[in-house]
């Protein structure tokens, strides 16, 4: 008879009850964050899409994706920033596909050429201003756009945006400065 001495790994069998309790714990943890961060995901998506139903779909997908990968997150304190990035990327993807579809459906349509526009004062008060602002936002680099959106959400200070994105406060300020300057240039 031949015999082999084999090395036994430290924790080969994980009991079903242990696994269940781990899952329950993760589920509870996620649930706690859901209430806090669900609205944030929606608002970021809405800031990109400007369409409530689409933004809701994207926020839902982002939250579900975050849930599926929740245990991969090594630092739970980073959850908000992680979710924001997921929601932002998904919203951008959705926005691009909407734009492509619109382009396919109306290939001959060209944007109206801009004539000598109204003054800054008139623009700022007109209903057209919001549409122009949205277009100007779409043209911003993504990292600037995300900072502008987050800084605009009620209740979030620049320090919180910095913590959420995991970037220094100075970087948040400089991105915001450049973004605002670019927006003003386009809207002037």
């Amino acid at each position, binding site marked *: *008879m*031949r*015999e*082999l001495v*084999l*090395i*036994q*790994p*430290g*924790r*080969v069998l*994980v009991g*079903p009850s242990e696994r269940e309790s*781990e*899952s329950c714990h*993760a*589920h509870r943890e*996620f649930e706690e964050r*859901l*209430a806090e961060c*669900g*609205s944030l995901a*929606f*608002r970021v998506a*809405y*800031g990109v899409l400007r369409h*409530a139903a689409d933004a*809701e779909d994207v*926020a*839902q997908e982002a*939250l579900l994706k975050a*849930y*599926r*990968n*929740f*245990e*991969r997150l090594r630092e739970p304190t980073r959850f908000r920033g992680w979710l924001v990035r997921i929601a932002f990327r998904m919203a951008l993807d959705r926005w691009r596909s909407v734009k492509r579809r619109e382009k396919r459906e109306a290939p001959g349509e060209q944007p109206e050429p801009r004539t000598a526009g109204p003054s*800054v*004062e008139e*623009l*700022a*008060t007109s209903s057209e*201003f*919001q549409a122009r*602002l*949205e277009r100007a*936002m779409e043209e911003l680099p993504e990292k600037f756009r995300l900072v502008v*959106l987050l800084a*605009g*959400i*009620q209740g979030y200070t620049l320090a919180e945006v910095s913590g959420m994105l995991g970037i220094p406060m100075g970087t948040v*300020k400089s991105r915001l*400065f*450049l973004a*605002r*300057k670019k*927006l*003003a240039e386009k*809207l*002037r």
Partner: protein
Amino acid sequence: MSCEGYRDKLIDGLASGESLLDGDVAGHLRTCAECKRFYEAQVHLFGAIDSGVRVMVNEEVPMSLLPRVRRLVAENGAPRRSWNFGWGFAAVAAAAVVVMSVGLLRRSPETTGRVAGRGPAVSQGREESARVAPVLPLTAAAAPKHHAMEAKRVTVPEDGESRPQVIVLAEERAAFARFVTDLPEEKDVAVALTRRASDGKDEAVETALLKIDELDVKPLESSNQ
């Protein structure tokens, strides 16, 4: 400084959110009516940008969002356990080492010739002696003429001391242990080493045991380090 220079300064100040004007710029605005008008227009513009962005992102969250997500989460079950490239690589490396070791031992005519005349040998994991489980006799079945893989039933004892065991290189032990710990959740990973016991009760598990006729199995050099 020209009016253009003052205007650039004004815009920079407004873009950075500063409400107080530089003394120099403020002095110029008192004397230059055109720049003052420009300044007021820019204040208006930046204010409109800020309020426009706030409108853009502070839309009321639909009441249906969280219930929808909760329902989907409930349908999805537990979140996925962590499984990253590192574990995958460790698992593949461990499996490859085992397969190559067995393959080399089986194919090498030198080895086969050398071991033919020897008696059985038992390898010892010296470093792990405190943690290594009691030796499980693998099989007492009659030795066939050729090398063969044979499936046998192995019972996992209830005391938890002896468990299914595999050969792993010393440097692969930690990674392999982690891999095995994560294994039950990774349904999409094909593993031939062991099989998960059915949930809920301890019962016999079936595992493929390697039985090599007339083969002297020695400890791998690296496992003694």
